[in-house]
């Protein structure tokens, strides 16, 4: 019996189409077209200045593109959450940071206590729940920032180099949290410079250079053989100018 296998692309959570952005008289995003699959972890890779973080801010709605469009079906303002490279936590305890986020997200007061307990449990933050958030280590602060973002139950979680300058233990804890979040059904976009991290976590790769998408591929395929000379040079450790 002949079976027809339909090779349909995965559903898309968000799409940037021909996006342009100018900063300081220079086009930092120049006709960027990129889609984010609705499932799994999508790593955006590329050298410094490629426009990765800016594209993430456009996805989060923090910056409006000067050209092109950012489209998605995520209607609620809390459906997309962003975690920054350097987390900014409030001058309160971890628990109070989560309570503040839940209040912003409109969670009724009566339900907050239980939600906070769930979030602390999910992020393995129970032991430091009542510690001042800004006194925590960098890794712990980043975990709090991630869990705070998850308080909104986002369908798309954007992570801007969440493990930059963290030690291996802290990196492992963050990566575990990322895997758990993806397993819970959220689509994740992860900006990273770390080839190892992309190999460990990503299902899809989007490689950017000079404000444009240079290559898009499943992660396993990309790590084995890159099609573009830019990605080949980058992963070989050459400087991309």
């Amino acid at each position, binding site marked *: 019996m002949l079976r027809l296998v339909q090779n349909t692309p995965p559903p898309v959570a968000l799409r940037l189409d021909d996006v342009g952005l100018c900063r300081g008289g220079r086009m930092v995003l120049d006709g960027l077209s990129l889609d984010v699959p609705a499932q799994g972890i999508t790593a955006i890779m590329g050298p410094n200045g490629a426009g990765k973080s800016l594209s993430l801010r456009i996805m989060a709605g923090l910056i409006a593109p000067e050209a092109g469009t950012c489209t998605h079906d995520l209607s609620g303002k809390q459906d997309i959450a962003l975690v*920054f490279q350097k987390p*900014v936590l409030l001058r309160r305890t971890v628990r109070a940071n989560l309570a*503040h986020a839940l*209040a*912003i*997200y409109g969670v009724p007061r009566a339900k907050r206590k239980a939600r906070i307990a769930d979030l602390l449990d999910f992020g393995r933050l129970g032991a430091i729940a009542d510690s001042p958030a800004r006194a925590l280590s960098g890794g712990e602060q980043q975990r709090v920032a991630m869990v705070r973002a998850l308080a909104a139950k986002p369908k798309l979680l954007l992570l801007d180099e969440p493990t930059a300058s963290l030690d291996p233990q802290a990196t492992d804890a963050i990566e575990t949290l990322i895997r758990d979040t993806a397993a819970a059904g959220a689509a994740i976009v992860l900006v990273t410079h770390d080839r190892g991290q992309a190999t460990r976590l990503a299902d899809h790769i989007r490689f950017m250079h000079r404000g444009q998408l240079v290559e898009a591929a499943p992660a396993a395929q990309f790590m084995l053989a890159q099609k573009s000379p830019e990605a080949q040079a980058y992963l070989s450790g050459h400087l991309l100018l």
Partner: protein
Amino acid sequence: MQGFGDAFAAAFALIVGFDADLVEIVALSLRVTLSAVFIACLIGFPLGAALAVGRFPLRGMLTILVNALMGLPPVVVGLGVYLMLSRAGPLGVLNLLYTPTAMIIAQAILVTPIVAALTRQIVADLDTEYHETLRSMGAGRGARMATLLWDGRFALMTAALAGLGRALAEVGAVMIVGGNIDHVTRVMTTAIALETSKGELATALGLGIVLMVLSIALNALLMGAKATSERMAHA
């Protein structure tokens, strides 16, 4: 005219002996000043935060005005409040002139621009740090203002302290609207002015010493509370 040493000795005797008149004047001074600063903070904190975070017409003009009003001459405020509260004034029916309430109103008007202008700067600085995070969370302006005011609470104590210093040392406005009436509206600064003009240096010095000690003690208390709270919150 007493000698300098005699005046000091008599002043210390008044303080140590808890002179009834002295205690009454000190108590009224504290009541008026702390009430005025409390009201100024109630108005100045949200006003300063709105100037820092809000986007509305004339915001720039209002900011300049609030900054300029930090140097408002107390006698001008006293005159303005006097005209408002005098029998012929629009608020004359309230019969507030020459009462502690009138003094509180005048001092609150003096202190509010100081609290508001310092709050604006503190909140604007904090907003630079929090802006993207709060926007990414979808926080509206009201929620942003509330968050910034709460997280800037230790720095805002400095704004309140500046207001307290201004109110505690102020004499012109309370003299005009209070009238310096014995047992009714006499506070430390107006009493010092009066006793000095009468040549009663002991009482004037005693009040002056109490005023200085109170000012230092209140500042030390608030600074201590600020430092302790900051340590606890690692802010």
